[in-house]
């Protein structure tokens, strides 16, 4: 394989090496040159600055020297005699005169200095004691002999020592720099002259120095204070410059006292930013002149050389790139030719030798390549032949494989069609003939299916004309026919020639033009259900493989046909089943309607609607037979218009006439397949409404006609037996429904009558009891009056009688009261008077009431009431009545043993039980004792007395509280009557 990057990589290497050699040298030389240019420029600038600084310093020094000279001039008059400087009364003689003359001279000298040197603002003369003797000022009045003491001032001390003293610089008005000059006077320096010198001139000198466009100069004094700067603001803003590097450096240099030349330097400028700074010392002031230029501006001249160098560098680099490329290409070219030759060999082109004439090792290498190519070519040729033979074998095998694969594909395709088309056979057979034609190498393929004595063309594919649906006789004279009849494959090489063997077949063959014919029967369970036929228009018998393949297709056709047959069968069965299920469901619904609904109309409507639907008719009617009028009255209709129903209702349908009449007459189903063919049909409007067929069944009960059911259909025709049977079933259900309805009607009527009677009874009882009580009270009242001897003394005999009257009267009144209570309850007139009560007190009240009775009968009376029973709400009087009744009953019916009363709570309810050791109550009697006027034992009623209303009333009272009263008893083992009461009863329960 040819690697396209390998040549490029070598080429790049050459280029890079050459480039590094040439470009590197170029770059190095440019950088060196630039560096030296930079250094030279810097040096030059600094030299210039230095020169300016020196010049400025010189001018400043000159100025100061001039001032100093002028001031010194004034001291020429100074006497060497110390006393001469003293002016004062202490001095006598000529000395005094001399002194005065000297003083006058000095003053004049001072004035001259003021006139000649505008920079001097003030002059003063200090005597040898440091006292000021004269002061002459430009602005202030002159002072003579102020005697101000300056003996300690540096100006005096220094000058007195014989030196010229320059003070540090100070500002007047914050902006004008001044310096004090002190010079010794006379030979022995006994006197001192001082002068205030304005440094405005220095300021001017500094301002006039031009250093490029951005440069500036400034002066600092001996204390590194800024003295002069072109921008006078700086004097105020930044006086102390001792922190600046250039100032420090200058100061250090000066103190080092070495003779080395002052150097310039790069440092931070006064206004910030890098500057090139040079300086020169000002000897008198002990200060320096600094000249600075911003580095950026100073180096501006370097820009042009840099650009120039860069251009030259880039041009040189470009040229070296070009040269490198050219050179590298020259070196790489033969290698490239070799590489291409090798690539050709690699690609198999062995006929082109590598042509290279370089006369060196590369040419030898090319020769070696060429020799290698020749030997390669020879071995290739032998190899090619072998490969060709092997390829042929492989191609054959491959073709077979492809064929069988295609057949497999076709087979599976057909199976897929079969599975996708379970109901329709056409697509399967079409696919089959198509595949058979193709894979068996036939001109066409036909599938025939037997139909009576013929074979019908069901599927066809191919070039030979074959009208679809054509019927071919199923005879041995055709290839297909014989194949079916003999149930085997028939293969005819030239059908046109087989006139003897296949008379009919050969005729067809000549008509249609086919010759070689192959038929394979479609056999299922040893019966031929069709045949598949392949044809060719020339004599070219089918191979065994093709015959076997066709057999496979035939089998598949059988499967498909069988599938469809089975599917259709299944479908029919399913439909039948569905119909049966629907019938059953309808009947079930009707049955449910009959049993669940007492509304006869809706039941009959349900029946007739289901009957119409299931019988697949269009309308239906159920009639009820009116025995009195001997007519059928329509009771329920379905599928009919209101108009038609009304017309039907108006018609008088008797026994005999119409369909239903006939059915009633014959007591059997009657059907009229076509009403039009029925002469004198009594209901012509039905014909007008479009009904043609009618089926009617009578409704019979115990042999009597009670109605009829008829269905009508708009299509004429007989009704099948299942429909008739179905209608019979509906008729039977209609009978039941009508019967049920009649019975319910009767029961309902009776119930209503009973209810009214019961109410009347209760009302009567309530009224009665009330009416009875009034005279009874009168009877008892008068009896009491008599017994109380109100009407005179009552003899013992009468008294005894009267006592009985009174006792029986009271009994009767109790009976009446009970009846009144019961009747009130029955009539719904008893109203509970709800209030808070204590169950314990209820029990106590009952016990105290019945205690005497119990003790009379020597019965033990026990109570069990927990102390923590909650307070209840209910009708206390009525509850006491209930408990009294139960306890009374227990004592009444118990002859020996005990009666116990228990009260407790359970689930927000009181449970109160009264147990006795009486005779007990049988199971059957437990049901009846709660009914009115009943006691467990009629015999004991006689014995025990009582109304038999107590339990009944008690139960009602408990129920009105929302509670329950019941009995548990075993005969011979006593009874327990219990009742529950909700603890808090807020509403009276509805009467149940």
């Amino acid at each position, binding site marked *: 394989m040819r690697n396209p990057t390998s040549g490029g990589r070598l080429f790049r290497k050459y280029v890079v090496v050459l480039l590094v050699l040439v470009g590197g040298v170029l770059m190095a030389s440019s950088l060196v040159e630039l560096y030296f240019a930079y250094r030279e420029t810097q040096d030059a600038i600094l030299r210039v600055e230095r020169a300016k600084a020196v010049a400025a310093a010189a001018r400043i020094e000159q100025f100061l020297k001039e001032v100093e000279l002028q001031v010194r001039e004034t001291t020429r008059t100074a006497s060497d005699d110390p006393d001469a400087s003293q002016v004062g009364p202490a001095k006598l003689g000529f000395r005094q005169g001399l002194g005065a003359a000297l003083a006058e001279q000095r003053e004049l000298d001072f004035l001259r200095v003021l*006139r000649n040197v505008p920079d001097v603002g003030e002059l003063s003369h200090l005597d040898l004691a440091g006292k000021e003797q004269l002061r002459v000022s430009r602005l202030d*009045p002159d002072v003579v002999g102020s005697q101000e003491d300056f003996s300690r001032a540096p100006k005096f001390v220094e000058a007195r020592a014989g030196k010229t003293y320059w003070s540090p610089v100070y500002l007047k008005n914050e902006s004008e720099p001044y310096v004090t000059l002190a010079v010794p006077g006379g030979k022995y320096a006994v006197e001192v002259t001082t002068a205030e010198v304005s440094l405005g001139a220095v300021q001017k000198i500094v301002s006039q120095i031009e250093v490029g466009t951005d440069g500036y100069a400034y002066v600092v004094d001996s204390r590194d204070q800024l003295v002069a700067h072109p921008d*006078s603001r700086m004097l105020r803003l930044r006086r102390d410059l001792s922190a600046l590097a250039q100032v420090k450096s200058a100061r250090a240099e000066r103190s080092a006292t070495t003779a080395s030349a002052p150097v310039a330097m790069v440092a931070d400028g006064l206004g910030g930013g890098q500057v090139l700074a040079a300086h020169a010392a000002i000897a008198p002031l002990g200060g320096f002149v600094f000249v600075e230029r911003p580095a950026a501006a100073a180096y501006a001249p370097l820009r042009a050389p840099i650009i120039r160098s860069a251009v030259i560098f880039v041009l040189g680099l470009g040229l070296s790139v*070009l040269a490198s490329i050219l050179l590298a290409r020259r070196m790489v070219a033969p290698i490239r030719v070799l590489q291409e030759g090798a690539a050709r060999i690699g690609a198999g082109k062995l006929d082109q030798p590598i042509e290279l004439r370089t006369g060196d090792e590369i040419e030898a290498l090319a020769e070696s390549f060429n020799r290698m190519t020749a030997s390669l070519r020879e071995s290739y040729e032998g190899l090619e032949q072998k490969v060709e033979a092997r390829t042929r074998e492989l191609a054959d095998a491959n073709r077979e494989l492809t064929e069988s694969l295609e057949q497999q594909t076709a087979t599976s395709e057909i199976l897929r069609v079969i599975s996708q088309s379970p109901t329709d056979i056409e697509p399967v057979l079409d696919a089959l003939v198509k595949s058979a034609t193709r894979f068996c190498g036939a001109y066409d393929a036909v599938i025939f299916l037997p139909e009576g004595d013929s074979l019908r063309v069901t599927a066809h594919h191919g070039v030979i004309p074959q009208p679809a649906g054509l019927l071919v006789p199923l005879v041995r004279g055709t290839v297909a026919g014989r194949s079916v009849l003999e149930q085997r494959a028939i293969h005819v090489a030239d059908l046109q020639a087989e006139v003897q063997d296949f008379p009919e077949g050969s005729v067809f063959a000549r008509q249609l033009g086919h010759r070689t014919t192959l038929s394979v029967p479609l056999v299922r369970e040893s019966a031929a259900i069709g045949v598949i036929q392949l044809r060719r228009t020339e004599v070219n018998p089918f191979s065994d493989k093709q015959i076997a393949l066709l057999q496979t297709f035939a089998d598949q056709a059988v499967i498909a046909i069988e599938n469809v047959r089975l599917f259709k069968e299944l479908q029919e069965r399913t439909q039948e089943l569905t119909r049966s299920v629907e019938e059953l469901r309808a009947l079930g619904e009707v049955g449910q309607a009959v049993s669940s609904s007492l509304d006869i109309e809706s039941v009959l409507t349900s029946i007739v609607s289901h009957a119409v639907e299931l019988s697949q008719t269009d309308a239906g009617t159920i009639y009820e037979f009116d025995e009195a009028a001997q007519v059928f009255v329509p009771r329920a209709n379905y599928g009919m218009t209101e108009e038609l129903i009304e017309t039907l209702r108006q018609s008088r349908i008797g026994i005999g006439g119409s369909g239903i009449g006939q059915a009633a007459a014959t007591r059997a189903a009657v059907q009229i397949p076509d009403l039009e063919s029925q002469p004198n049909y009594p209901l012509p409007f039905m014909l007008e409404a479009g009904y043609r067929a009618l089926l009617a069944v009578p409704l019979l009960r115990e042999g009597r006609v009670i109605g009829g059911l008829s269905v009508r259909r708009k299509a004429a025709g007989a009704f099948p037996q299942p429909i008739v049977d179905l209608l019979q079933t509906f008729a039977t259900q209609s009978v039941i429904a009508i019967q049920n309805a009649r019975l319910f009607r009767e029961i309902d009527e009776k119930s209503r009558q009973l209810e009214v009677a019961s109410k009347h009874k209760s009302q009567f009882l309530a009224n009665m009891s009330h009416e009875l009580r009034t005279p009874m009270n009168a009877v008892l009242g008068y009896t009491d009056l008599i017994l109380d001897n109100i009407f005179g003394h009552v003899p013992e005999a009468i008294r005894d009688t009267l006592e009985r009257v009174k006792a029986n009267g009271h009994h009767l009144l109790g009976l009446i009261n009970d009846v009144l209570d019961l009747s009130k309850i029955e009539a719904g007139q008893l109203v509970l008077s709800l209030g808070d009560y204590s169950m314990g007190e209820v029990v106590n009240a009952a016990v105290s009431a019945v205690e005497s009775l119990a003790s009379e009968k020597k019965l033990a009376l026990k109570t069990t009431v927990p102390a923590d029973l909650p307070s209840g709400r209910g009708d206390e009087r009525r509850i006491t009545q209930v408990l009294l009744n139960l306890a009374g009953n227990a004592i009444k019916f118990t002859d020996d043993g005990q009666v116990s009363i228990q009260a407790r709570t359970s689930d927000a309810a009181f449970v109160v039980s009264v147990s006795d050791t009486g005779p007990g109550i049988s199971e059957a009697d437990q049901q009846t004792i709660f009914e009115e006027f009943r006691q467990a034992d009629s015999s004991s009623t006689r014995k025990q007395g009582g109304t038999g209303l107590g339990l009944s009333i008690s139960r009602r009272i408990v129920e009105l509280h929302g509670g329950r009263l019941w009995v548990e008893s075993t005969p011979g083992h006593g009874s327990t009557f219990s009742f529950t009461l909700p603890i808090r009863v807020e509403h009276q329960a509805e009467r149940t």
Partner: protein
Amino acid sequence: MHNFCFRAPRCLWVVVAILLWLPADVGEAQKAPRPFRIGVLNAAWAASHPTVEGLKAGLKELGFVDGRDVTFDIRFTEGKLDTIPAAAEALVKAGVDLIFTSQEAATHAARDATESVPIVFTLVGDPVGAGIVGQLARPGGNVTGVSSLQTELAAKRLEVLKTLTPAVRRVWLIYYSVDLGTTPMVSKALEAAQRLNLEVIPKGVVDAGELKRVLREVRRDDAVLAPEGSNPDLTIAIIEQSLALRVPAVFGTALWIGYGGLISYGPDYYAQGVQAAALVAKILRGARPQDLPVEGAEKIDLAVNLKTADLLGLTVPRKILLRADAFRR
């Protein structure tokens, strides 16, 4: 391979083109700026007032060529003080870059006319006292200039007068009462009078008429300290009266010696103009006036008119002669 061959030269030419174009951009020609316009405002009788001449000379020395770098728009009101404000307004309206004023009235007028155009004043006796600047070192506003040291020199003037005429006992201190800056000067003079054994009588006047009325009271052995200030009429009147009355008078500047004034001690007008030129130059080069401290006049001259001295019968002492910068014979 071929790609590389083509790409390299193309890159190269692009680089070369960029480099060739770069230097052309570096040296961009600078446009010549228009000359600065300096408005001059004073109450002089002519355009060639000494301060203006000094200014021109100073600027020239500092490299500003008249006509090329600077032009002058000179407004002088011929001694009329009431027209100065209008002239100031006119200058501002004319759009001058700087206003150069002389004396208090013009400086006040310029200050009233603009708060933005820089003002450089001259011949202002006491800039702080006159309310023109806040502090000498930090003037504030848009104003700076040269102070003619009227207050500072008050004592020295009395001394000069006393030196020339030792017999004088009483000095009439005449001042233009409109100028606010005279108050400190009067105080300074009164203070110095004691030391010099003189009686100083301050008299504020507004015009020559009032001045003449005041001078009627001048007696023998009296002298006059003539005012410096906005109203030149007063000075002229004092010269006339002093000559007429034979009363010695000391003046603020040598200018008046030429008109017959006896003696003067004070700054030179021309020199003030030169001095102010430096301030003007700084402002024109970008400095802000409020950053430039007010300078005191540098050149203080003593001038004597020997002829007038003769007239007054005075012998000029050696001290004066020695000190004097100028004489008029």
